[in-house]
């Protein structure tokens, strides 16, 4: 077994142990929040809304809500884990060891993806109580959720590298991520918006991720898949490069 593989396995195991050890803080809250969304928006209000893009409102919002929980959990897992490693200085355990930068990124991002996808699975299982989910394209569904999770895990990592206090790792989720997610077409189809606001919405990268994921379930999307995947892959490549540059330079980690 190569040294790099052992290092990656150790880091990944440590990351997964971390969020499963505090499952009450990491796995239960999204399950409760999303159940409330299903009850209030899906069942109580949704029945009065009628159909959206040819599907019941509940069927329409479930993929978006699953994706929303994947995004927020992937992001916050890496942001809080890496920042607390920096704060407690145990990131030094990695910096003194011969661990390549890409392994450090893969280990933390892997932890974020593991939590994001686990929460996504929990929310999916809960949604089955409210709606019968059909899968239109499993490949699109899995690739979109995996790469979106990777993308936001990388975002959380960069946020943690830049952060100087715990406040700094809550600013982006609260003031950027949440508005972009809510305005990213979780609760409505972009076609309902006037042309101008449809154009504005297309500047929101989360729109592409939610639409692609929804396509995996429902087979309908507001945006062509090729655009969506290009945007997702482009962001993943850009954020990975930025994180790689920062960690290898010791930005925010070495004085």
């Amino acid at each position: 077994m190569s040294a790099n593989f052992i290092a990656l396995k150790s880091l990944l195991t440590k990351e997964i142990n971390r969020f499963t050890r505090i499952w009450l803080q990491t796995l239960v809250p999204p399950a409760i929040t999303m159940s409330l969304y299903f009850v209030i928006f899906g069942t109580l209000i949704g029945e009065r809304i009628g159909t959206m893009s040819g599907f019941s409102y509940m069927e329409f919002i479930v993929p978006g809500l699953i994706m929303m929980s994947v995004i927020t959990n992937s992001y916050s897992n890496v942001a809080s884990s890496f920042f607390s490693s920096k704060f407690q200085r145990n990131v030094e355990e990695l910096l003194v060891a011969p661990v390549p930068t890409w392994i450090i990124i893969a280990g933390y991002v892997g932890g974020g993806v593991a939590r994001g996808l686990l929460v996504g699975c929990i929310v999916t299982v809960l949604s089955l109580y409210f709606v019968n989910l059909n899968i239109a394209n499993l490949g699109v569904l899995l690739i979109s959720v995996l790469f979106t999770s990777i993308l936001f895990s990388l975002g959380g990592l960069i946020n943690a590298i830049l952060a100087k206090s715990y406040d700094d790792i809550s600013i982006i989720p609260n003031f950027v991520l949440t508005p972009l997610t809510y305005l990213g077409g979780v609760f409505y189809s972009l076609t309902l918006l006037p042309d101008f606001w449809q154009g504005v919405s297309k500047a929101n990268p989360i729109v592409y991720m939610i639409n692609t994921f929804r396509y995996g379930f429902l087979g309908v999307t507001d945006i062509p898949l090729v655009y969506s995947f290009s945007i997702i892959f482009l962001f993943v490549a850009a954020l990975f490069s930025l994180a790689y540059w920062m960690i290898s330079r010791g930005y925010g980690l070495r004085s």
Partner: protein
Amino acid sequence: MSALSIKGLTKTYKGGVEALKGIDLTVEQGDFYALLGPNGAGKSTTIGIISSLVNKTQGDVEVFGYNLDTDLVKAKQQIGLVPQEFNFNQFETVLQVVMNQAGYYGVTRKLALERAQKYLTELDLWDKRNARSRELSGGMKRRLMIARALMHEPRLLILDEPTAGVDIELRRSMWDFLQQLNEQGVTIILTTHYLEEAESLCRNIGIIDHGTIVQNTSMKALLSQLNIETFVLDINPVENDVSLSGFETRLLDDHTLEVDVEQGHELNTLFTELSKHGITVMSMRNKANRLEELFLRLVNQTR
């Protein structure tokens, strides 16, 4: 081959603070080396650069011939670091802390478990292996950091004040452990504020102050520079000041006498002089640790 070779190392922090002003230092393989200096002298910056926690401004560092700029992975594999402050994850168990670190160095799980048992047992922590590390006492935490640093069996162990805040009994058992490691061939670099520790453990010594090396020599050669030693004698009560031929004396109170003894002066002569004056010595001790006196003298010279 040198275990550590530093040439022209400089470090200027953002804001312009010049922590290291071009230091040169060589530590031979198998050495037990003390790196001493007052707070803020540049010890931790030097250690930080060697262990890749601080970016250097200029200069070259080689560890067992591996240059940090060109052979970083191999250089890192040679080094075990015991930092000054506790920097392990406080929520992980003792075993998890050491196993993770072994994993980062590519040590297989089976081998890591064997080493964990060996080092945690030797450092008296095996019974605590499933305890969360934050529940350990200060001394146990220090020993955990030593065990963690040994998991990949480094050839160079760097300890930054390993016995700070540790009681005397435990400190001595840690000294024994470090001496055994050194006898097994591990090169050790130690920084400490307990100069007695440096004097009793280390063969060679470097003193750093204001970012420059002010002394880099063997402990023996350094101590030989001390030409006067001061002894404190507990004597039978005397009424008048005591004047001894060939010795500088000070009567601190009626039963405590301080005597300066120059290098080369025999203590027998001192006792003969004391007997002549009818003074009985009940006990005697060094006024200060010899290394402490030299250290203060060398550091004060640079101010």
